[in-house]
């Protein structure tokens, strides 16, 4: 297959078909926690795209050039990755505060939250161990593929979060039975939204 087409497929597959929020249920805490305000969710999406790509590139390099040569990749990757992510988030926060105050104001408060955002750890883990996503792909991602894959995951996260926020803002005004008010209704809405993503999967013939 043409490598460019392959990269495109990887991106679309990661962003839409295997959308990290709606079809794989990763990072749902942030999905339901912050999706009641459009401003917040745009900030969070940008912060996730930024941090996720940086974190995955860092962990990919660490996995292949530090952990594997030392022979500890199999059982040290969890602590190593989470420490790298936590340190990276701190570092990015300090850097932004010093050199780009405008960007810091836009996504400053979301940065610490990202440390415990499962999506970042999931993307970093899957960039080195692509368990589910093997369509026409070599089993181990190269550095370029890992970055494209992570970018796809992050864009998919932002896309799903923003569209769900838009739905929830409308839902505030809707007439909902008293029993279902609040969180139950949000879940049902998310269920209907994720029905749409199943349609995408068949569209791409996966």
């Amino acid at each position, binding site marked *: 297959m043409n490598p460019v087409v392959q990269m495109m497929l990887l991106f679309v597959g990661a962003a839409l078909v295997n959308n990290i929020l709606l079809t794989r249920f990763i990072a749902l805490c942030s999905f*339901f926690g912050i999706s009641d305000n459009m401003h917040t969710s745009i900030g969070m999406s940008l912060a996730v795209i930024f941090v996720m790509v940086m974190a995955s590139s860092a962990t990919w390099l660490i996995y292949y050039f530090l952990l594997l040569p030392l022979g500890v990749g199999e059982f040290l990757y969890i602590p190593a990755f989470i420490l790298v992510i936590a340190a990276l988030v701190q570092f990015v926060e300090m850097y932004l505060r010093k050199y780009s105050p405008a960007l810091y104001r836009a996504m400053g408060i979301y940065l610490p939250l990202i440390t415990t955002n499962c999506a970042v*750890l999931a993307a970093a883990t899957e960039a080195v161990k692509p368990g589910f996503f093997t369509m026409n792909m070599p089993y181990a991602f190269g550095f370029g593929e890992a970055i494209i894959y992570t970018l796809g995951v992050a864009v998919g996260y932002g896309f799903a979060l923003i569209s769900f926020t838009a739905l929830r803002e409308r839902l505030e005004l809707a007439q909902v039975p008293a029993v279902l008010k609040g969180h139950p209704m949000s879940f*049902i809405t998310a269920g*209907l939204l994720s029905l749409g993503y*199943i349609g995408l999967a068949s569209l791409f013939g996966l």
Partner: protein
Amino acid sequence: MKEWLRVFGNGLSFENPLTVLMIGLCSTLAVSTKFEGSLFMGIAVIFVLVLSNVLISAVRKFTPDEVRIPIFIVIIASFVTIVDLSMKAFVPAVYSFLGVWIPLIVVNCIVLGRAEAFAYTNTVWLSVADGIGMGLGYTIIIAGLGAFRELFGSGQLQFLGATLVKFPAWYAPPNILLLFPGAFILFGLIIAGSHAMNRKLAARKQVAA
């Protein structure tokens, strides 16, 4: 002992991590397509939660406030690695079904949340109660959801290779239960139900008091 039981019971009802605190949802919805997988997920979470609660509570007096989160994460990550490797060795079929969800226990909001909100400020003995209660509250919901989805979504219930229940052939399983929307919608209904139940329990308590 009374205090112990109160903390333990809170995890099951009024502070149930899934239906009330709404944390740790990701794994619940994702792995509950199979009863067996969700039961083992629950056991893994109980194990990590209890042991990390105990250790964090034991070292809470020497933990500097500023670096507590990295310390918690390292403690949790070590227990998760134990679970990760033992499951790979002893129940490989379940391990491959759970996949990325085992490493993700590290960032499971339940574990870190309880470390921060409970274990860091309470005694070891109470932290055990909190760990078991929260873990059981999680396991009951996830295993129940898994059993329901597997039974009605695929028409049979399997456990470690043996078929426990099988519906007759005329039963056409609605596929949607096994797919993602089914999880969301079913879980929405479960929350609605448990909120209603908690409201009733609280009302009865007020009447009694």
